């Protein structure tokens, strides 16, 4: 387990029930600051549900989701914050948030947690550049004086907009889509849409980036590009990444820490090496898949 000192997000006793179905059952894990944490598990294990709870799309049935900006000393105030009724606590540049108490848009706006979706959710009828501009909504909203100054054409807004375009352009350079900036996002090939969704999430300046199966449907080359992009994000921006992934090559290659879920219950938690050799994981997940792979390979004559 990572030490609390280096933790950006603490998930404690998270439970999510849908009627009689317990999708996530008493789940606890930590996400390390500046690291890549992977959340894996078979289909229907509850991974996306965990994301939806963290990002405020679902109200967790039980549990605490705490996120820290800045000084780790603030962790000591977590229980006090929980006992009080408020959502967050600020001290200078540092802050502590209880995500389960916040509506979805505030989780992104204030706690600065960004996410992508399992089924890509771009704005297909808007251009690639516009997608990245929408992601900078809150910063631009302030710069436009909540529309008033913007309507009147104050130069401060024009400056802010140029800066936003510059930022979008730097992300487009990074994901190799500069040439397609003015094309509608819905026209991009699948792999490019995935990368654009990651870039769009990054344009909100997140502290924690949650990616729901970013490599799904990518070919090996695109998958390798995505790995490089994620490592770049971690190294250049220090953004912590929480990743759901089915593709074991991606998970083993880039993640520092893996949490394994099965039927909503955590069955393993550790480094890639530890998880790879964990008998419970092999039984629930990896083992079955390897066998299936071998069987399929035998069938096609490999």
């Amino acid at each position: 387990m990572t030490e609390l000192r280096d933790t950006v997000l603490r998930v404690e006793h998270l439970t999510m029930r849908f009627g009689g179905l317990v999708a996530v059952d008493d789940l606890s894990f930590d996400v390390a600051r500046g690291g890549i944490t992977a959340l894996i598990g078979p289909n229907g294990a509850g991974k996306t549900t965990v994301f939806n709870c963290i990002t405020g799309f679902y109200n967790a049935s039980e549990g605490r989701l705490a996120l820290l900006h800045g000084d780790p000393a603030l962790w000591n105030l977590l229980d006090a914050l929980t006992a009080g009724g408020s959502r967050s606590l600020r001290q200078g540049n540092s802050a502590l948030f209880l995500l389960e108490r916040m509506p979805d848009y505030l989780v992104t706006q204030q706690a600065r947690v960004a996410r992508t979706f399992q089924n890509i959710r771009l704005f297909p009828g808007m251009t690639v550049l516009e997608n990245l501009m929408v992601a900078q909504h809150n910063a631009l909203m302030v710069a436009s004086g909540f529309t008033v100054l913007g309507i009147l054409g104050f130069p401060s807004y024009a400056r802010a907009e140029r800066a936003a375009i510059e930022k979008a352009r730097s992300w487009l350079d990074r994901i190799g889509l500069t040439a397609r900036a003015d094309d509608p996002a819905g026209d991009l090939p699948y792999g490019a849409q995935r990368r654009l969704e990651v870039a769009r999430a990054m344009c909100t300046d997140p502290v924690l980036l949650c990616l729901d199966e970013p490599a799904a449907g990518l070919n090996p080359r695109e998958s390798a590009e995505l790995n490089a992009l994620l490592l770049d994000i971690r190294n250049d921006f220090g953004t912590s990444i929480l990743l759901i992934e089915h593709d074991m090559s991606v998970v083993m290659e880039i993640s520092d820490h893996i949490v394994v879920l099965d039927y909503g219950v955590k069955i393993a938690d550790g480094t890639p090496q530890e998880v790879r050799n964990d008998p419970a994981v092999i039984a629930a997940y990896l083992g079955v898949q390897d066998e299936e792979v071998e069987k399929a390979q035998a069938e096609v004559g490999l």
Partner: protein
Amino acid sequence: MSKKSEIAAAQSERVDLTRALRDAGLAALLAFALFLPLIGFWARNVGEGLLLVTRWDALALVVLIVAAARLFYTLVAQPWLKRQRARRTEIAPPWRTALAKWFIPFAIGFVVVYPLIAIAGAGMRGSIKWVDNFGIQILIYVMLGFGLNIVVGLAGLLDLGYVAFYAVGAYSYALLAKTFGLTFWILLPLAGVLASFWGVLLGFPVLRLRGDYLAIVTLAFGEIIRIVIVNWVDLTNGYAGITSIPRPTFFGIPFNADDNGFAAVFGLEFTPLHRTLFLYYIILGLALLTAWVTVRLRRLPVGRAWEALREDEIACRSLGINTTNTKLTAFAMGAMFAGFAGSFFAARQGFISPESFTFIESATILSIVVLGGMGSQVGVAIAAIVMIGGTEIMRELDFLKEIFGADFDPTKYRMLLFGFCMVLIMVWRPRGLIATRRPSVFLKERKTISADLVKEGHG
């Protein structure tokens, strides 16, 4: 070409003919069933009772016309359309790009000089009708269309009760002007503020609704406002409406024949045309203001958030956008422009009653937006000209009386024309006249986005 393929081609032609005949027969049957009660029987008031008259000749004529039209469509029009479609090239012809570039400046220039053209064409007396019935009337709907376009076209929220805000604007002006004697220029912004306040009020309960549910609740809201106006007789005078509403003045100078009236002060001969021209330029200014504000809003974060909301609300929330506020601002903004238009309407008419704010008005404005192409200002303006101008022009078609007899009234067929236009456009351009979307910002060049990619919103 080989003999075989020629025969095959000839065969397919023959098959087409039988198919066309069958289609025409079906159409005739359908027309017969539909028009039998509508045209075949005619209940006439004769003294005390009703006399049922049959009109088999008229029915046969209509059925024949329908069958012939269907035959023409399958045999001539459809193949022609197909060939046209195949011939359409990727690159737009040069005249088209030139048209796109010069259309808006030319159109604005035209509407500015339009009253002068009307005066030159129809003289001082005759031009009033052209400036008032065509110019002002159309511009009111252009403005309403622009306003509703923000809610429906940009934010993707289907609003069937838009006329409620128009009514709020009109009654605000009428009541405040009569009670407190405030002038038009003070009440115009005030009416806008009041209407947008009601817009927010409507916005709150419908925030969580989508699609059909949103449409029904907004429809109900429109009716509630109208029914309150009808029944709150002490305040609004109910069905009788409010009369002698103060008219706008030219910086305090009234438009009348008095010694201190506009004509006398400026040493002109008195004519009601002065006021009509003044009103024309006010509504033109208001419509242009609405268009300009909308264009600017689209380039601001709120405008982009509206469009993003139409595209994908969940993605918006994941980007930290407060969708509640975004929807409310869209409702408030749309309602504000309706309020402006409403107060102008009251000032122009001098008389308002609940009759002017029925559901059919909402439907008309919405169909202008839908026919024009959601989100497109040029499309909305063209649709307003066609729909409102079209109904006005029906009053002018006196020559039809010579064909159909003296008691023929073309305006009675207004709704028929309306429906016909709607069906035609929806077949020809399902997403409206101008369905392409112009990006709000670009890196290298502004490419228009085809309608297939742009979402219509989910409510």
